[in-house]
């Protein structure tokens, strides 16, 4: 089934999923637009992997509805347009890297004439061109994860679901993966990156959705989720009486020579600098900043459930596109 590209890439509405008495998803609603690069964040057991599995039809929701690329959850044909890197990234250990890609290109239904080119592209993209004929069991974990990424990106799918894509990679490998993920987004693919590595999500994603106990507790652009930004300035020769002139910008915290104003719209930082100079201060350093994602993340997941709902409401920018929501 091919749906219009005007439909979101992912729409989940009040999805519940339980495994026996364990609730994995508790009324999750989520919308991801076409071409977005979204990070699913959450502690272990938050429901990230279950969400990915539902999108692929590997598991079925206990209740609730959803659509992926315009088709109902579990639609077999739609899976030809999705690339997936599982958290465990296990591939037939006795196959060569190129053979794994050939097998998946056949399963994905790539036209026969396009397969060799697609395989070569995938190998080059993930830096395995010179290891194409190595058996999987002979590849390091990091290389196997790169191979998995190549499998996921094979044939340039419309939707790419990556479950912990850098868990086995060294810093250079992680940097490579970030570049690969961005390039997938740049060619128009929707990418959902599932991770508990906050820095990874922070560096690569346009938007984050924080899951906790199977629910979305926060969603939006990173700045929205983390909170409004601020600025730190190292200032000397500024008399305390004249410092009050800066109060119009926001709450001021003084720490020795350092002044911190937060919250503060980033666009107002030049005005602050001008005001400090006008007040007679000498500026030695200006550090635009924002709250820490880690701090905000910990705050979100340690809140009690009712408070989480409030957090979701607080973090949703009024008038912003309905990108995600908490429990309805």
């Amino acid at each position, binding site marked *: 089934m091919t749906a219009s590209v005007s439909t979101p890439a992912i729409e989940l509405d009040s999805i519940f999923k339980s*495994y026996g008495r364990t609730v994995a998803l508790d009324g999750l609603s989520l919308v991801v637009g076409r071409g977005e690069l979204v990070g699913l964040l959450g502690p272990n057991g938050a429901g990230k992997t279950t969400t990915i*599995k539902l999108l*692929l039809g*590997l*598991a*079925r929701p206990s209740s609730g509805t959803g659509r992926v690329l315009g088709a109902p959850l579990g639609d*077999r*044909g*739609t*899976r*030809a347009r*999705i690339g*997936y890197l*599982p958290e*465990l*990234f*296990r*591939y*037939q250990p*006795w*196959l060569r890297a190129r053979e794994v890609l050939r*097998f*998946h290109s*056949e*399963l*994905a*239904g790539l036209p026969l004439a396009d397969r060799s080119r697609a395989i070569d592209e995938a190998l080059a993209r993930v830096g395995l061109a010179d290891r194409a004929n190595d058996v999987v069991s002979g590849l390091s974990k990091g290389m196997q994860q790169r191979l*998995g990424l190549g*499998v996921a990106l094979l044939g340039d799918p419309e939707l790419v679901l990556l479950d912990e894509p850098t868990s086995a990679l060294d810093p250079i490998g992680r940097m490579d993966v970030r570049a690969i993920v961005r390039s997938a987004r740049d060619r128009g693919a929707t990418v959902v990156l599932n991770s508990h590595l906050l820095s990874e999500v922070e560096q690569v994603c346009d938007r984050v959705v924080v899951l906790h106990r199977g629910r979305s507790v926060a969603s939006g652009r990173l700045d929205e989720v983390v909170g409004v930004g601020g600025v730190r300035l190292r200032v000397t020769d500024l008399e305390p009486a004249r410092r009050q002139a800066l109060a119009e910008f926001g709450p001021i915290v003084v720490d020795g020579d350092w002044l911190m104003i937060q919250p503060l719209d980033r666009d107002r930082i030049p005005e602050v600098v001008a005001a400090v100079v006008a007040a007679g201060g000498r500026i030695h350093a200006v550090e635009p900043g924002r709250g820490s994602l880690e701090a905000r993340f910990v705050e979100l997941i340690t809140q009690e459930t009712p408070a989480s709902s409030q957090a979701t409401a607080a973090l949703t920018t009024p008038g912003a596109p309905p990108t995600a929501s908490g429990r309805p």
Partner: protein
Amino acid sequence: MIAIGRLTVNELVRRRVVWVLAALSIVSVGLVGWGLERLVTLARADGADELQIRIGVSQILILIAFMFSFVLAMTAAFVGAPAIGGDLESGVALAVLARPLRRADLVLGRWLGCACVVVAYTLLSGLLAIGVAILVSGFGPPHPVLALGFLAGQALVLLTLTLALGTVLPSIAAGAIAVVGFGLGWMAGVMAGVAAAFGVGLLGQAAEASRWVLPSDGLWRGVIYGLEPPLLVLLAAGEAPRLAEANPFYAAAPPAPLFVIWSVVWIGLVLGLAAWRFDRRDL
């Protein structure tokens, strides 16, 4: 389904399963040939007539076939149990089933690949053993193709059971259940023969019913019938036909056509049930 079947055969070749089976076949057939040649030579030296030798060779072939059927059951269990169960446990199945592939195609493709290897192993090893027996003794079974067909059928039944169990159980448990099932089925067949010989109706009916639940032993009777000389059947029928039924290595007749049809249907039903159940399973 074809891609999965091809992958399965490729896997069994690359993981040396096929080569190990081939090497074991050559070694075991060599030993069978050597043993038969010695027995026949010694029997002839002792003045045994050709009829006695012919019956003796057929009984030894049946015993060898019985041991081979056990080896086949183990092979089917070792090959079939991890075919899906192992992929689920290792996580390999996740990437495969995220593709536009029906889960039934995975089940059928895996079965098809394993079945090709198991049937090829059965036919090649069986033909080799029968050929060697003819070469060293001068006597061969009356219906070798029928015997090997039933032997392959028995292996397919056990492969099907193991593979189906592997879709819902850990692969070790699936393999163990299939091997135990094979043993229990054979014991039920022996009990059915004993019950028939001594006229214990209820036991006979229960044992007979077990052959319909798991058709491996019923197919085994076809292997025996294909290997035993017709003269032996005639002699048993004339002397003590009911008592002969108690011999677990004797069959008065091949399995009924209805039973053969049921065996084919059984394989289809179990595979279908496995595919249906697997389709509803969360991974």
